């Protein structure tokens, strides 16, 4: 894929979620510019992309439930709660920092 077809973004997992992502907290990813149906890539597409292409752990349900991020996992888009940004409909921009933080794990 050429650079024109992808958006460079940074993904971070914390609060225990990194366990599901090969214990790697930070990923610099090229995200396809358009989703499966040719629409601009949004967070919903990003989550699907992470599930299908990045996550090696088979327990997908610990990250995604009923087609969206599992309740109890916070999503921060450039530090802001995703609920302030349109949740999974937020269209991913070049250089975005998107963080998934689990509140479900203990110490």
């Amino acid at each position, binding site marked *: 894929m050429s650079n024109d077809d992808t958006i460079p973004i940074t993904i971070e997992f914390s609060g225990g979620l990194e366990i599901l992502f090969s214990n790697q907290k930070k990923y610099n990813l090229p995200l396809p510019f358009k989703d499966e149906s040719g629409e601009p890539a949004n967070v919903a597409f990003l989550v699907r992309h992470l599930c299908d292409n990045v996550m090696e752990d088979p327990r997908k349900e610990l990250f995604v439930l009923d087609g969206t991020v599992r309740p109890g996992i*916070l999503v921060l888009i450039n530090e802001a709660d995703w609920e302030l940004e349109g949740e999974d409909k937020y269209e991913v921009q070049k250089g975005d920092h998107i963080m998934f933080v689990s509140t479900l*794990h203990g110490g």
Partner: protein
Amino acid sequence: MPPSPCALCKVNRALILRPKDHSKLCKTCFISVFETEIHHTITTNALFHRGEKVAIGASGGKDSTVLASVLKTLNERYDYSLDLILLSIDEGIKGYRDDSLETVKRNAEQYGMHLTILGYDELYGWTMDQVVEQVGKKGNCTYCGVFRRQALDRGASRLGVKHVVTGHNADDVAETVLMNLLRGDLPRLSRTTSIVTSTPSASADPASDTNIKRSKPLKYAYEKEIVLYAHHKKLDYFSTECIYSPEAFRGSARALIKNLERVRPSAILDVVRSGEDMAKLVPGSDEGCGGACSKGVSAAEEEEGEGGCGSAQGRSTGGEMASVEAQLRQNEAAVDGHLETEITTKTINGSGKQQEACAANGKKAKKGIVPKKSSKQVMGQCKRCGYLSSQEICKACVLLEGLNKARPRNHIEVGYEVQDVSLNSVRDELDATSIRRD
């Protein structure tokens, strides 16, 4: 969506949407509001008195780390004049607790607090790794929960501290409320909603283990905000799951709470408040404190039901969730009776008939799921260790006896037989204890 300005300062970009009231706040205002609300909880409930020495039950996880950070901040800002120390319990689980204890050690340095780590091996002669080797992965959470409960009190006592604070948050309390509601256990619901629990001392001995006050300053704080506070303040915390209960955090009560929050974020605090209101309706709900506290209830009694493990000490959520799930499964098919017998017997204090019935059915009635007879219990001291107990011998000593009896046989019998032996001996001991009481 265009960025919204902060509802308070009207200047900075809002980064946080508060679950309790949907207000949009910037980072600085959020941190300030969060701390002020904890301060309000502390002052309206008169949790502390000046000069008090307070131990923070610290696991290295998000809740206790935030608790330590906020208490340090408030202690300085509002001049509480508290002597804050960290108390950690090492269950002896390699690859789990040893990692999180490293976080606690860093926290101790970061916050300038004295840290004491107390191990199960030191207290009981058994690490959880050894317990699991003996009893298997199933049911080991019961041991861990019972041991941890006493461990914090014993640690506090050793340090000359009369007050232990734990990181229980609003989500934890809401979850407990729902679970006790689902179990029909209003007496326990009443006890667990209390922000202060106090173990009335059975003796006048000031060195006694049992006279320890417990409180939950984060009781009204959302888990979401605790995590966001930790994130925005860049606090150093550790997240992992206990290797012996990796599925615990998928528990149904927790999932229910989180789903409710997604639909209506205020639901969590509403459940907490409903729990408090229901508690007021429970007959005799004030009698649990044994007269030693005005608004508190017996800590030992409260926790007696929480035999589960926790993903963090002082947190019983993981185990409780697991036990609800376990209970649901058990209702469908009551099989595999050996473990449950052990737990059942502990569940009913002095209620021999019910105990026999459960044992006969081979039903898995897990500790804390069968409602206790009432909130009225006669609290005495364990004849072996002196810890507060409603039985002649406290649960930890009963469990230890079972473990110790089986220990020498460990070397001559094969694994699964050892397991049976240990559980049977626990059950026998529990039977005996119960009969003596009757």
